[in-house]
């Protein structure tokens, strides 16, 4: 059995209702395990972009790509696992911090290049971005102070440099809006 590892796909889809459901349903049905999935609009009207991190070996990765292409609304798939790229997770963490501990916590944030976004007498909201490892590190460090809540995105990925990847990100002709 070939080695399973985390693989990152950039997937462009038509921005239509139900497309996320189609992608998620495909992964569930084919027994592909999603590690994280992030989706949002792009600068191109009508095009959404997903970053999907999946547990897969190289062969499974190829089948994931082929299956994604079978979705009528899927425009372009790029397996960037082995391509030099920037990968970021964004997290917001609310920490229970009294005035007494505040200075100490702010110092920690400095080390992690995180920032305080909101300060109240008993808590502060931290914004941090970076690799999942860095986020996890900060969470561990802040835990003794009391984490009240946290939220994070999935991984967002972009390849470095401006080398066009194959055909490059797609654009689509403006189409009459039609429910999917």
């Amino acid at each position, binding site marked *: 059995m070939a080695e399973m590892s985390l693989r990152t796909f950039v997937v462009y889809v038509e921005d239509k209702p*139900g497309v996320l*459901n189609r992608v998620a349903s495909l992964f569930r049905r084919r027994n592909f395990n999603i590690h994280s999935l992030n989706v949002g609009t792009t600068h191109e009207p009508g095009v959404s972009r997903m970053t999907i991190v999946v547990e897969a070996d190289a062969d499974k990765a190829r*089948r994931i790509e*082929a*299956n994604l*292409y079978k979705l*009528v609304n899927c425009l372009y798939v790029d397996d960037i696992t082995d391509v030099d790229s920037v990968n970021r997770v964004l997290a917001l963490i609310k920490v229970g911090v009294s005035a007494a501990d505040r200075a100490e916590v702010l110092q920690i944030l400095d080390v992690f290049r995180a920032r305080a976004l909101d300060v109240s007498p008993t808590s502060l909201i931290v914004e941090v971005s970076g690799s999942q490892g860095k986020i996890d590190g900060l969470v561990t460090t802040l835990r003794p102070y009391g984490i009240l809540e946290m939220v994070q995105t999935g991984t967002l990925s972009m390849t470095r440099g401006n080398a066009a990847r194959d055909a490059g990100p797609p654009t689509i002709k403006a189409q009459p809006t*039609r*429910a*999917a």
Partner: protein
Amino acid sequence: MTKENSPEFPDRTGQSLTGAQIIWESLVREGVEVVFGYPGGAIMPAYDAMIEYPIHHVLVRHEQGASHMADGYARATGRVGVCIATSGPGATNLVTGIATAMMDSIPMVAITGQVPSTAIGTDAFQETDITGVVLPITKHTYLVTRPEDIAPTIREAFYVASSGRPGPVLVDITKDAQQSSCVFEWDDSPIELPGYRPEYTALEEELRKAVELIQNAERPIIFAGHGIIKANATGALLEFVQRTDIPVACTLLGLGGFPATHERNLGMMGMHGETWVNRAIQDSDLIIALGMRFDDRVTGNVKTYAPNAKKIHIELDPAEINKNVKVDVAIVGDVREVLTELNRHVGRCERPEWIAKIDAIKGDSAVRDIKNMPDMGKLYAAHVIHDLYRFTNGEAVIVTDVGQHQMWEAQYYKHDHPRRLITSGGLGTMGFALPAAIGAKFGVKDAAEVWVIAGDGGFQMTAAELSTLKQEGLKVNIAIINNGYLGMVRQWQQFFYGGRYVATPIISPDFVMLAQAHGLTGIRVTRRDEVEAAVKQARETPGTVLVEFQVEQMDAVYPMVPAGADLHDMIERPHNPIYETGADAE
């Protein structure tokens, strides 16, 4: 079978039409001649508008029948089959037929009514999220809420259903979209879908590698799958075999893709493939797989599957490559185009030793024994099917149900032409045969006789469609292989569950009376010497004739590779098949 004397209907493009009218305008423009369906609240506007159009509607008795009929029509003709149902229960009743079509890559468009767009999400009466329900069992789905979207969506649905690797597409249309009006436009320019890639062209490099493997192989074997039939590649395959002299094994759905009576045809492979076919596969040094997907019923245990064979996989769907079996050369493309290309490059070759070896094991043939079985008064399904083959000159369109009789059909009815065997392969849907045969008959019309071969169990699942048959005045002959059991499951109980026949003995209505109750002719056959007369009578009688064959109850399909076992690990037919049953041994 379209509406008689239908006047050329007027061109209404540019006029204001209701969404309901636009549905039929679009279907007519897609060349639809017949639809199979059942009305209800959310689709009533469409039904009301239907009367204006030259499309024949077949009223089914259960919407499952509608989706199987559309499927049978598509398999018989290669064209898109259309079924139509109301929202909620009408739509959910289509599901089994849609799943059946998906598994066997059948082009189908299913149109469902939906509650008004303003009511969606409110759990309105008969509201079901049918696009959600069928998402994993369709090639694509659409929900249409505005009349102006109906024509472009139906056009796109037909295109998606029939292009590339075909499949079912569902178009769910809200009632308000059917009721409101807009100016009807029909755009017949080529459809552009930005993300849809139905076609692939074979890479030179892969073709070159394939040619080299083919030239150098000593013990090659060709697999003919459903893709051969779908791609209309039977001619190209015949030429390929004539050039290369390589024997051909067929998948269940590939039967008819290569003439069964051709000397290089080995027959069906897999779980109920004949021994020599599976042995040849295990022995081969090269497999050339054409338009098939190495289903588990074909491979058995993949770890021990064809261990010495290099594999060339020629297939339209890239997602099938290396899915079940790792291959050495993958050629993604239209099977006919690829074969045509290969025919240009492979030289003539002969492999007398390999052919002789296969011919020798083929000599073991148990089929021959069955054919020559003396008539001891007992009726075996094998007799029935072999006789049906003989008396229909091997030319009938046979639509089978699922079970033992299906496998016996595959073994004993030799199909020389494509689209003459219609059977649910991937899903194995009992209840498929009768409705699918009705659909097939609408497809082939008078060009071929259509026979159903069904088990007593499966026939009862959709027997209500006898009434549809009668209402449509069709002639579809029906052979029920009545063994008093859910035979295939009984066989598994016999082999693998210690002979505990739990929930497999099944009684049936008096099939002759059932036929008569529908105003059809019924015949009962219990002895071998009655088969010929019954088949002849069925063929000569106007209208549908149902023939019930009461066959040996404990007969089994041989050979059999137990699920997941090694392909060469077959349970073989007992030496003398006439002594297969306990009663015979006495």
